[in-house]
């Protein structure tokens, strides 16, 4: 029990997307609507909400299941309390990142986007292929992503 953090729910409610978490009355329509839950029992929206409200901070943040949400918004559309659980999950992921729990694949994406501004760098080869198809050439999208990341501080997580 000493692991419980009764203030965790307030932290989630302060994070963008997590504002409505305390409105949940546990009807479970989120779990019933979830396409991930249908396939994999490790992921259970109603249970995650209860865990947050009970203050099980560490067990939520360190668990792989928080990265299973596919952001399909099926739960959000049906929630009678307007909890917007997809956005709550996004808030949880954002908090997990700040606390140092982040899958490596995501860190790599930051590096790529910082460098190229796009997930796939467009080089001469791609542009020549585009020209051959009659598609316009694409300019580099550089510089500003680094500025954005410095302002928000997200670049720090790749430096850890």
């Amino acid at each position, binding site marked *: 029990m000493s692991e419980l953090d009764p203030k965790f729910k307030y932290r989630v409610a302060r994070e963008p997307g997590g504002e409505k978490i305390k409105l949940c009355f546990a009807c479970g329509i989120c779990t019933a609507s979830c396409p991930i839950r249908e396939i994999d029992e490790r992921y259970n929206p109603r249970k995650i909400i209860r865990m947050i409200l009970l203050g099980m901070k560490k067990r939520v943040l360190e668990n792989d299941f928080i990265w299973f949400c*596919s952001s399909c918004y099926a739960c959000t559309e049906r929630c009678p309390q307007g909890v917007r659980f997809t956005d709550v999950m996004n808030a949880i992921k954002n908090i997990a990142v700040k606390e140092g729990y982040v899958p490596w694949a995501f860190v790599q994406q930051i590096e790529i986007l910082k460098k190229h501004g796009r997930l796939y760098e467009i080089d001469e080869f*791609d542009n020549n292929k585009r020209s051959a198809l009659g598609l316009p050439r694409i300019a580099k999208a550089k510089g500003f992503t680094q500025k*954005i990341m410095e*302002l928000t501080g*997200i670049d720090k997580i790749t430096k850890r």
Partner: protein
Amino acid sequence: MKRYALFLGCTVPVRAQHYELATRNVAKELGIEFVDLKEGSCCGFPLKALDAETSLLMAARNVGLASNLGLDVVTLCNSCTAMLSDAQVKLKESEFRKKFTELGFTYPNEIKVRHFVRVLYEDIGVEDIKKAIRKPLNNLRIISHYGCHYLRPSYLHTFDSVENPHTLDELTGLTGATVIDYQEKKLCCGGSVLGVDEELAVKMANQKLSIAKNNNADVLISICPFCTVMYEDNQRKVEAKFNTTYNIPVLYYPQLLGLSLGLPPDACGLKFNRIKPDNIISKL
């Protein structure tokens, strides 16, 4: 002539050039002019899980580029559509706007962000598209896949019905093809968990592919490059996992529409589809 700013995002210009090609050719046929957002970057969606503000600032910059041209944005990817729409709402908040301005970005005119398919439905309209059909695809059975972020969250899109969508089916029906009606239209392709748990993603993709097969679909229609990655690029993987054969071509809606407008298969980029759509070409 209707003019829009075309936002391509990351995946389409590199990995879905056939989608882009078909879109541009269909647009020309229907009197749509695109101005390319040449300085456009990633929409920001891949960073949303890491830091919402970073992703929204990236998205807002792209919206700002179109706003400076005074043009509404047309997107080709479902997630780009939702992400840019999200930024547009965020730009109304003063604190966010302050950071956006601090970075040297501008947003002079309020503009709309919509998926190309939605623009076809709303701005060109079913009647005018119907009049432009020259080669009805009467022999094809088609299953359409909407994808999540074309319609959801409804607090960003306010279009179609999230529980029982019809716009893509209606547009698909215009091509003369038989549209398969089925219950699981809102199923997620699994694309966004591919990097986290491949097995889970493959199981999700299998659901719709098996529905397509059980309904004898000749082709599955997609309107999002992520959904196509799951249903077409990973189709062999799904087949191996479930010990079955699908061999169902996956076409982007503008490819299908292009064929029915009488464009040659090459102008619709059909030779770039990974699951060869020979069954379609032979039925043309």
